[in-house]
């Protein structure tokens, strides 16, 4: 009985340890992302990648359609709207105000994404 308890404690400790390392890596990535002013979202397999993108104010985000099927990038709240993007076509938008910008593909509305501007 005592032995199984100690295994459980050990397992919890290992999980916490891994969690801490993970958070550290995210911080590093976040600080690396502060520098570039352009960021790319790829449209692949009927999805936006990354689905949620966090960028500083002033960043230009470029969407590239890598599917065989056309897509669009349309702000749910009307902030931006691309023309239809055929394969390999791009759409860029510069975010000058902080806020959360949900968007979707108006042809395949199940495809949704979000840009968080800080």
């Amino acid at each position, binding site marked *: 009985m005592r032995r199984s308890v100690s295994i459980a404690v050990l397992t919890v400790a290992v999980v916490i340890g891994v969690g801490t390392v993970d958070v550290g890596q995210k911080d590093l990535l976040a600080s690396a992302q502060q520098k570039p002013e352009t960021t790319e979202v790829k449209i692949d*397999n*009927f*999805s936006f990648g990354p689905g949620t993108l966090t960028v500083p104010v002033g960043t230009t985000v470029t969407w590239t359609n890598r*599917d*065989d*099927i*056309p897509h*669009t990038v349309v702000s*749910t709240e009307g902030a931006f709207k691309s*023309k*239809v993007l*055929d*394969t390999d076509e791009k759409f860029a938008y510069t975010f000058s105000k902080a806020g959360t910008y*949900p*968007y*979707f593909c*108006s*042809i*395949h*509305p*199940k495809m*949704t994404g979000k840009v968080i501007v800080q």
Partner: protein
Amino acid sequence: MTGKSKDEILHDRNDDGIDRRGFLKCMAWAGTGALCVMSGGVLKSHSLSRLPGLSPKEAMGELSFVQISDSHMGFNKPANPDVAGTLKAAVDKINALPAAPEFLLHTGDISHLSKPEEFDTVDQILKSAKPKDVFYVPGEHDVLNDDGKQFLERYGKGGKGGGWYSFDKKGAHFIGLVNVMNLKAGGLGTLGHEQLQWLEDDLKHLKHSTPMVVFAHIPLWSVYPEWGWGTEDSAQALAYLKKFGSVTVLNGHIHQTMQKVEGNVTFHTAASTAFPQPQPGKADSPGPMKVPAEQLKSVLGITDVNFVQGQHALAVVDSTLA
């Protein structure tokens, strides 16, 4: 798809390759070819290869028309670099039918990118089809960039609002619905309040015995909402149609044939004349399915529908382009 999944045929009482229960389980076969006759909500089907053995009454009825769908003119990727060629093959097949169908129904995605030249090419190819009347509903690829303005100018004359309309042929009532406009983030196809209201009014004066044929691009039944293969407010439309003894719903969009029966309503989706799409959930996304060139025509096709007056029956024949 030539093989049948294990549970499709449980009791093949009519020796027709399909039983009722198998049918109700939502059969999915990509263009193997079947003639389906609906009678009082019960379906009988005959495989295409057995058509010569059918009586003319069974095979033709008094009204026959052909459904084609998803031509995607302008698409030129590896899944099918010659969508004009495969549309022409569909027209050849239509012209080879034993009796010329009365008219054609095109259930949308005529073009790939809504370009005028894409529509022009399709119009040109369809001119060589024996039936001269073509009835269209738009797919989402036909209303890109201009909220459907061009589509309505070309094909929507006489339609209401966003292009929906109805007409009568030999006692059957046909309704073309539009469910590809004003799509909302995260949602499915949409008919909208205005169109639903029109539908309710349109149906008011009709006898319940009138056979109904409803056609729209995106399926009006929930094929696979995860991929957007359904229509948000179709339940309301179907509620208005419930009182009719025979309702057939024809759709495109999913580039494969699929059928389902719900009470008096038979749902049917047509194959694309351009390129196949995967079965629901069987791939990461609903993108074009690449098949070897020699197999392509076996997964593309046309749908031939025969209406037998006075018997409340519709016959649906799927044939492949191979």
